[in-house]
């Protein structure tokens, strides 16, 4: 049984499996190695994902959801027309599409997967990702940190090495950096950091701005300020596409030219642009952003308790690491050549596939790796402190520090603050090591965990031990023990903000199945409708009307999702086409 490795990305997703002991990428139904993470209700009311949805985005912005990964774990529904979806339901559609593509590719059912998430993902975000998998009909074997997955892909090829490696991941819209310890067959993430809003798309924007500046210098008018709205939109689209090309060219050449013939007409004069940008100029544009990533890199090395000289290898992943300045600055920092032998767009999915296979019995001990992850954020509770003789609530008391290896267990003893106090409320919060106060938006528990049954006593006399257990999949369990009586209260944080109940998951599964069947039906009918439209072009006027009617009937029943009726209407349309051809 194949276990899929899935890189569920912010802008693109990828999937892989292990074939003959080697991880390999699986192409989607359109033959693409990566699938845009775009979800949409199209003009016919069908749900579509991937490139098709991305291609239609500019016309249907209100019916399209981009970058849903940023909203994972959030209970707020996303509205598309009259329907609303939770982020995990939308992610489930991506996963279902990938699952379906994998099944078509492999010719067998796929029911298990390892899904990757950013290292900084919270508990709720991880659970939401797991639920998305469940809705899509996948048993999620493991939620794996993305840098860990990349390190596995690397470690799989370099088994037996003992090294500290930095995984530098600069994608389209996000940056992550991690320090990973490779120790024989063991992989341990020591520390992670990053910037959620920095990536290659920012560099495209900078290039567009650069071009606009050159234009303004030459023509003394802003490039996107004249002409009709439609012209400006077209102009912007052309410049943006050219900026992407220029960026790619600059990865292999010292100069690149914005070649935009007949881009506009200004004061009756046709304007063709031919501006050449050198790699040095491009480097100046993006330099500050890249240096910012190096600041994060410094922080992560310190967090890992290491120095730059103790880093043995640097792995570059994410499409934007193809930019020479990125490679140059990273290599200069570490005084060594970065490893580029893994495809930067595919490393995470490949590593996830290897992790999936490790759980498979067929995998031999010699080829298996042991993975140790770290806690992506600091965890603690809110307590009351006496400051300058005054009681102050809302202080953040840390139990588990960021970057502690998983599984992690931490215990602390607290005491009552009032005479005859019979209950204690425990709130669980995320935060940073430096935080002194809890932040309500980082509270993990919707309702506090109530420890009751504390014997009546004077203030400070009763003690309660609180223990946080954090497992490898990022699941948290809280245990409170009243020390005087031995009474224990245990609560797994199942019902958290943004997490769906079992009933909701079941319902979402059913809805997804129905939506999927409907979309499948519509896709199957597309070829017939296209053929009908082709024949219509050469048909007599009366025949054209008949074809139009038959197409309309077919489209209407597709909307209703009744498979039998669709088949009936399709047959009727095909009969009509046959009659016309004959």
């Amino acid at each position, binding site marked *: 049984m194949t276990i899929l490795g899935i890189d569920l990305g912010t802008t693109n997703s990828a999937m892989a499996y292990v074939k003959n002991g080697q991880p390999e990428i699986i192409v989607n139904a359109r033959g693409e190695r990566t699938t845009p993470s775009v979800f949409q209700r199209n003009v016919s009311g069908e749900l579509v994902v991937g490139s098709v949805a991305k291609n239609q985005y*500019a016309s249907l912005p209100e019916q399209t959801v981009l970058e849903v990964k940023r909203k994972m774990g959030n209970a707020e529904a996303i509205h598309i027309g009259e329907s609303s979806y939770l982020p995990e339901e939308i992610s489930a559609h991506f996963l279902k599409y990938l699952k379906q593509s994998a099944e078509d590719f492999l010719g067998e059912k796929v029911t298990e997967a390892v899904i990757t998430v950013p290292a900084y993902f919270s508990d709720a975000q991880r659970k939401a990702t797991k639920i998305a998998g469940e809705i899509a009909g996948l048993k999620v074997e493991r939620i794996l940190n993305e840098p860990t997955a990349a390190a596995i892909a690397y470690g799989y090829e370099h088994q037996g090495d003992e090294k500290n490696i930095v995984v530098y991941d600069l994608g389209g819209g996000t940056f992550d950096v991690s320090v990973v310890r490779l120790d024989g067959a063991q992989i341990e993430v020591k520390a992670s950091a990053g910037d959620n809003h920095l990536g290659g798309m920012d560099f495209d924007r900078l290039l567009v701005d650069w071009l606009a500046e050159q234009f303004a210098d030459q023509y003394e008018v802003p490039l996107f300020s004249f002409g009709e*709205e439609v012209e400006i939109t*077209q102009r912007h689209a052309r410049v943006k596409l050219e900026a992407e090309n220029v960026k790619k060219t600059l990865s292999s050449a010292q100069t690149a030219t914005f070649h935009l013939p007949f881009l506009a007409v200004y004061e009756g004069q046709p304007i063709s642009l031919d501006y050449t940008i050198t790699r040095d100029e491009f480097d100046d544009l993006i330099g500050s952003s890249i240096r910012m990533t190096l600041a994060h890199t410094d922080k992560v090395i310190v967090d890992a308790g290491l120095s730059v000289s103790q880093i043995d290898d640097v792995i570059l992943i994410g499409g934007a690491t193809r930019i020479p300045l990125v490679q140059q600055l990273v290599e200069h920092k570490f005084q060594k050549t970065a490893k580029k032998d893994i495809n930067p767009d595919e490393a995470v999915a490949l590593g996830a596939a290897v992790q999936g296979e490790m759980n498979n019995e067929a995998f031999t001990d010699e080829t298996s790796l042991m993975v140790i992850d770290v806690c992506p954020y600091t965890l603690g509770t809110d307590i009351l402190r006496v400051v300058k003789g005054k009681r102050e609530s809302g202080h953040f008391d840390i139990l588990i520090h960021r970057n502690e290896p998983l599984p992690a267990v931490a215990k602390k003893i607290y005491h009552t603050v009032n005479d005859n106090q019979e209950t204690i409320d425990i709130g669980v919060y995320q935060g940073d090591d430096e935080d002194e106060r809890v932040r309500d938006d980082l509270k993990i528990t919707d309702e506090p965990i109530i420890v009751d049954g504390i014997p009546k006593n004077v203030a400070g006399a009763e003690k309660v031990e609180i223990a946080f257990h954090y497992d490898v999949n990022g699941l948290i369990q809280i245990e409170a023990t009243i020390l005087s009586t031995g009474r224990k209260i245990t609560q797994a944080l199942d019902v958290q903000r943004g997490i769906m109940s079992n009933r909701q998951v079941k319902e979402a599964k059913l809805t997804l199945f129905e939506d999927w069947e409907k979309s499948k039906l519509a896709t199957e009918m*597309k070829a017939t409708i296209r053929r009908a439209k082709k024949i219509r072009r050469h048909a007599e006027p009366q025949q054209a009307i008949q074809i139009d009617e038959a197409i309309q009937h077919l489209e209407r029943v597709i909307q209703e999702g009744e498979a039998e009726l669709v088949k009936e209407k399709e047959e009727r349309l095909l009969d009509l086409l046959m009659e016309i051809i004959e």
Partner: protein
Amino acid sequence: MDVKQCLIQYRIWMLEDRLRHATMVFCGYAKDVLQLIEQWLTYSFEDEQQTIWLDAFQLLRKKVQQLDQVADYDDEKYIQLLRTLRAEGASLAIVNTLQREHQRFLYVMRKNELAPLREPLRRIAKLANEPFSERAYKQQIFYYSTKPIQLIDQFDYFAESLRKATMQQVIEEQLQLIISQLVNQLAHFGIFEIRALGQKLDGERMISIGSLPASYAQNVEQHHVCKVYERGYYIEETQEVLRESKVMTVM
């Protein structure tokens, strides 16, 4: 080279030469079109405006010249290959089939007609007992058709610029007509334009770059294409999209 290798080599040359021939036919047509456009520009504009537009027009001429640099058809290599096949003991059926294919191609080339692409390749693949690679076929078509397609883009951009410069409607229509004929020449590559204008938005074959208020195109339905900013193309024999149309739709 054994018989099988010879057949594979023949198949590679065959597709390349047919596509190269297609480029030559296309280029010849583009040159005729250039002459027409130059005449219209001279006729439509006066004084400084005429100079400006004729200068801009030189960019198109340069692009056509770049496309014209295609190697001549080399008949000798096929004759050599047939000799090798005979020497390697290829069956009479194989030698005859190749000779027939070659003669057919020479005939269509002389007549400037459409040379079939896929079917002869499949026949040779069968002879070589080799699977027909759709991927390699698509790659070759993509490679040879890219420049002609880009050239059509340049003509389209030029026409769009002229439109903004209050071009006479009759000239605009004629210009559109000759660009359409240039597009039709892509049939030599087995490629056709994706019909997009007036059609419902279809992300399989189109990329939207935005939408416009209904007032802009009152006779076009909501979510239907009211403007094609860049033409899209598909390979007719496989129905595969080579490049999506870039379109704008009605809000």
